[in-house]
C-alpha cells in the first residue's frame, strides 16, 4: 500500500583517506540498494495518504590500533581536547604541549590522518557558530602544520554548538564546550 524506499549511503567517514576532497555523494534514493549510513538516519517523504519510509543504520566504523600510544592514558597523545576562551581562536599555552605532541606523531607517521572537530558554546547563531568552531579547529591544525604535519593529514570540521559536551547553561558548561577535539582516522 505504500512504497518503502530503501536508501543507500556510501559509508565514507574516514573510510579511505581524508586527504582528498570528498565529492558530493551519489543520491541515496536508489531504490533497491541498501547500504549503511554512518549516523543511522531515517528518511521519509510526506504524502497525502501515507508516509514512505527508508532506514539506513549501523555504519561500519574501523577499529583503533591496540596498544597504540594514542590510547595509553599515561601518554599525552591520549589527551585530545583543546579548550578556548570566549570569542577566541588562540591555542592557549597550556594546550601547546598537547598539540605539539600530536603534531610530532603526525610527522613520525605520515600515513596517519586525523580530524579536528571544532565546537562552540550555545550562545549565538547556529550557522555562525559552525564557522566559529571551524576557526578553532583550523587554529589547532595551523599549529600542527607549522610543526611539520602535512596539510593533507588533517581535516578540520565543525559541530558549532550542536554537540555540547556539557548540556548546562552556565559559564562552566560553556567553557567545556568551547573546544576542539582530535580524532584519528579509524577511531
Amino acid at each position, binding site marked *: *500500500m*505504500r512504497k518503502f*524506499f530503501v*536508501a543507500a*549511503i556510501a559509508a*565514507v*567517514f*574516514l573510510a579511505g583517506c*581524508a586527504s*582528498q*576532497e*570528498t*565529492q*558530493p*555523494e551519489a*543520491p*541515496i*534514493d536508489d531504490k533497491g540498494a541498501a547500504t549503511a*549510513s*554512518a*549516523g*543511522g*538516519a*531515517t*528518511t*521519509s*517523504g*510526506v*504524502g497525502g*495518504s*501515507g*508516509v*514512505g*519510509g*527508508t*532506514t539506513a543504520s549501523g555504519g561500519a566504523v574501523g577499529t583503533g590500533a591496540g596498544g597504540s600510544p594514542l590510547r595509553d592514558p599515561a601518554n599525552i597523545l591520549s589527551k585530545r581536547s583543546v579548550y578556548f576562551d570566549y570569542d577566541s581562536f588562540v591555542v592557549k599555552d597550556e594546550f601547546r604541549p598537547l598539540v605539539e605532541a600530536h603534531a610530532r606523531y603526525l610527522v613520525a607517521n605520515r600515513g596517519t590522518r586525523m*580530524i579536528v*572537530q571544532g565546537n562552540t558554546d*550555545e*550562545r*549565538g*547563531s*547556529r*550557522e*555562525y557558530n*559552525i*564557522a*566559529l568552531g*571551524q*576557526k578553532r579547529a*583550523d587554529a589547532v591544525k595551523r599549529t600542527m602544520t607549522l610543526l611539520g604535519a602535512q596539510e593533507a593529514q588533517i*581535516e*578540520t*570540521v*565543525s*559541530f*558549532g554548538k*550542536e*554537540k555540547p559536551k556539557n548540556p548546562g*547553561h552556565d559559564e562552566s558548561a560553556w567553557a567545556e564546550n568551547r573546544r576542539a577535539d582530535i580524532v584519528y582516522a579509524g577511531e
Partner: protein
Amino acid sequence: MRSLLRTFLLLLFFTLLPALPARAQLTIEIVGGAGTTIPISIVPFESEATWPLGITGIVGADLARSGLFRLVDYAGVTPRPARPEEVRVADWRARGADAVVVGSMRALQDGRVEVRFALVDATKASVLASQVYTVAPAQFRATAHRIADVIYEKLTGAPGVFSTRIAYITKQGSRFSLQVADADGNDPQTIVSSNEPLLSPRWAPDGSRIAYVSLEQKKPVVYVQSLATGGRQAVANFRGSNSAPAWSPDGRTLAVTLTRDGGSQLYLMNADGGNVRRVTQSAAIDTEAYFMPDGQSLLFTSDRGGSPQIYRMSVGSGTVERVTFEGSYNVTPRPLPDGKGMVFVRREGGRFQVATMDFATRQVQVLTQGPLDESPSVAPNGKMVIYANEQGGRGVLAAVSTDGRVKQRLSSTATDVREPAWGPLARP
C-alpha cells in the same frame, strides 16, 4: 468503518514506528494581540454537522490565531444565514460584526462534498468573496485553510498563510527529527531522523524539497530531500564543513558555506550539487547566505569588519556593501518578501533578539525580548516571523508579527523544538 480505521491506524503505527516518539504536535496560542482587530462572525455552514470534522471551526481558529480578527458570536441569529442574500445587516450591526462568513455543504453521489462559502460585508450586505469547492472529507482541513486564506486576503490585503507548512527540528532524547507540519501545527510528519544533530532546514521555493544540514557523517553535510519520495542527495559533502544552505528564488541554485579552500566562504552550486563556484574571497568568516527575493543579491553574515555583521553582495558583480553598523553582533539575515527590509538577530546587552531593519531608512525595530532568540523565518506574506527561543533550558518556538504587535507561542510535547522554517505559499 471502524475496522478499516483500525487497519489504517495499525499500518500507520508500523510505518511510523521509528519516527513515532518525535511526532509531537505543536499547539499555537496567542500571547499578545494587535491593537485593532476585525470583528467577524463565522456562521456554521448549512448541513456542516453531517460530518464529524467540520470546516468553520478551523476557519475561525485560523483567523483568531492570526491576532488580526475577533470572532463575533452568531448565537441568536435565526434563521442562520447560509447564503449571502440571507444576511440581514441589522442582525450583525447589533453584534458589532463587520464581516460575516456563511456557507453550505452538500454530499455528492461520489462521496465528495460540495462546499460553498461567501464572505459578506455585514454593514452593506455586499458579497466580498465567494467560492465553491468540491472535495473529499479528508480535505476538509485543507479547504478550511483555503477559505481562511481568502478571507484574510480580502480583509487585510495580504495573502493568507493558513495553507502553508512549516518545518522544524525536534530533539527527543538523543534523537533528532526534521518535521513538516501544517502552519497550525497539525499533521506533523517526520521526513528525516538521526542520532546526530540536524539543522538549517530550508524550503525550496516550490515547496517540493527541503535542504538541510546533517551531522550524521560526523561533519556538517548539506542534503536536499524530496518531500514526495523521501529520497535525498548529499549536495555538499566536501572536505571540511558544509553548512548554511539557501535556495535561489528560481529553485535552481543553492548558496552554501564551505571550508574546502580554507576558512568559511560562500559558494553557489546547482541544486543537484554540480557547478560549484566560490563567490566570496575573504580571510574572514562569510556564512548564513540568503537570497534577496529578486535573486540578484545575497545577504550574509561576515566578521570581516572585526565583529559579525550583515552584508549584501551582488551575485553578478560580487560587489559587497555593509548593511548593519549598530552593535557588535548582527547575524542571520532573512529578507522580507518585498525586498525592502530584513529580519535578523542582534545581540544587545548579552540578549539575542529578533529585529527588523528597513533598508532605505536603516531603521531597526526590535521584535522580541530574548534572551536566546534565534533562527527567524519570515512567513511568505511577510506578516509573521517564526523563531526559536529557550524556556527553562528547553528549545521552544514562538512567532511575532513583523510589526511587533501579535505574539504567538508554539508549544510542543517534544523535549526540544528549534530551527523553524516557514514554507512557501505555493504547494506542490
